[in-house]
């Protein structure tokens, strides 16, 4: 059984450090083999998880949620009030979205999501997290110098805009609803969804104007 003993585990980590091969792929391969031999893992389930998150579960889901909110004020209201219930209408609830909250960008507000302590992320609507989101640099800097971080993503935030950074320290997960760009009046949900980038839903993208994408 799990011991919940911090010192014991720190010692185990040092042993692992000393004995594991350096190459991650070799480490994972051995772990997978061992788990299968122990009867704890079905390799076909691994394949299935990869397929599901490669083919189906990803930022396209979040984009669809955002597009619907742009086109349907009643849906937008439900999304703000209870995001978990609102994404469930589209069948998108699941991994890490039992306590989802949607936060809205406006002319005067920009939202940015981070997890400084680990890598919390709303998987079932955004898919797997980008590497930069989980990296030391983003985790350290997003709360302290969000404008400098956003500038690296090509996003300039004026002094008149309030930047709200959401540090996912509990089991709440955050979805940024970007502003609907001008020039998209009358567009249907699918066409709008194609404008919504993954980064816009994390907050590291802001202006989704179609011209910028060179599109349509």
């Amino acid at each position: 059984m799990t011991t919940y003993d911090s010192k014991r585990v720190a010692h185990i980590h040092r042993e692992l450090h000393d004995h594991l091969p350096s190459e991650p792929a070799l480490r994972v391969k051995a772990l997978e083999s061992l788990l299968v031999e122990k009867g704890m893992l079905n390799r076909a389930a691994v394949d299935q998880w990869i397929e599901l998150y490669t083919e189906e579960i990803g930022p396209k889901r979040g984009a669809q949620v955002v597009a619907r909110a742009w086109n349907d004020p009643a849906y937008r209201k439900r999304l703000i009030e209870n995001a978990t219930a609102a994404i469930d209408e589209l069948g998108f609830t699941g991994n890490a979205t039992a306590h989802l909250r949607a936060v809205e960008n406006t002319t005067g507000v920009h939202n940015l999501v981070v997890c400084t302590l680990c890598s919390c992320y709303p998987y079932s609507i955004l898919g797997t997290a980008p590497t930069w989101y989980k990296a030391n640099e983003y985790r350290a800097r997003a709360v302290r110098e969000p404008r400098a971080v956003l500038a690296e993503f090509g996003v300039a935030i004026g002094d008149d805009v309030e930047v709200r950074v959401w540090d996912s320290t509990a089991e709440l997960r955050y979805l940024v609803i970007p502003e609907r760009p001008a020039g998209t009046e009358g567009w249907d949900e699918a066409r709008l969804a194609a404008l919504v980038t993954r980064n816009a839903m994390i907050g590291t993208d802001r202006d989704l104007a179609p011209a910028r994408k060179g599109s349509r």
Partner: protein
Amino acid sequence: MDGPHDLGGKRFFGPVAVDEPEEAFHSDWEARMWAIDHAIEPAPGWNLDWWRHVRELIDPVDYLTRPYFDQWMQIEAALLIDSGVATIDEIVSGKAATAGPDLPPPLGPEEVRAASKRLTRYDRADGPAPQYKTGDAVRANAVGAAGHTRLPAYVRGRVGRIERQCGAHVLPDAKSRGIDRAEPLYTVRFEAEELWPEARAADAKERRACVYLDLWESYLEPA
């Protein structure tokens, strides 16, 4: 815990690697490690807060330098060893010397879709009532905690305002020791000027900014 994971506000890390291909997985081993973790019961008696704490306990230099999913591998290895399911020799060799634990059969491929839709709730309807209300000024504990906690160092001792009550959620500090105890949770807003000395300067570059954190009642005191 005062560990390497508590990165918020630490200075002079380099630029963010923004030029990353937007794909679900960047390599085969990363994909498999991610999926293994979703396909197994990591260890008898484990929970997510303990899992996070086990990551925090990785050697500080390894924590800051080893690839992200390599750390997942090491977490799982540590969980297996800690709970007596595997030995370090088995982890290194990839060969089982003894039978596995007495767990239900592993997740089958036909069960993956349902598992992906499963909601794990952390709120508890029968938890205690909240002591603070929206708008209240609160100060985060100055001292932190010896074990796992979700109070980052950068808000310790700082004053914020309750933005909203979130109900009673399971307290990670207790859960990571195997105890399921709910406590009122709040979203708390801290102004940049309260958190960062340079934000107080008249010529501060990072103006009009704030950070929201979700903090449990025992992390806070009235301010």
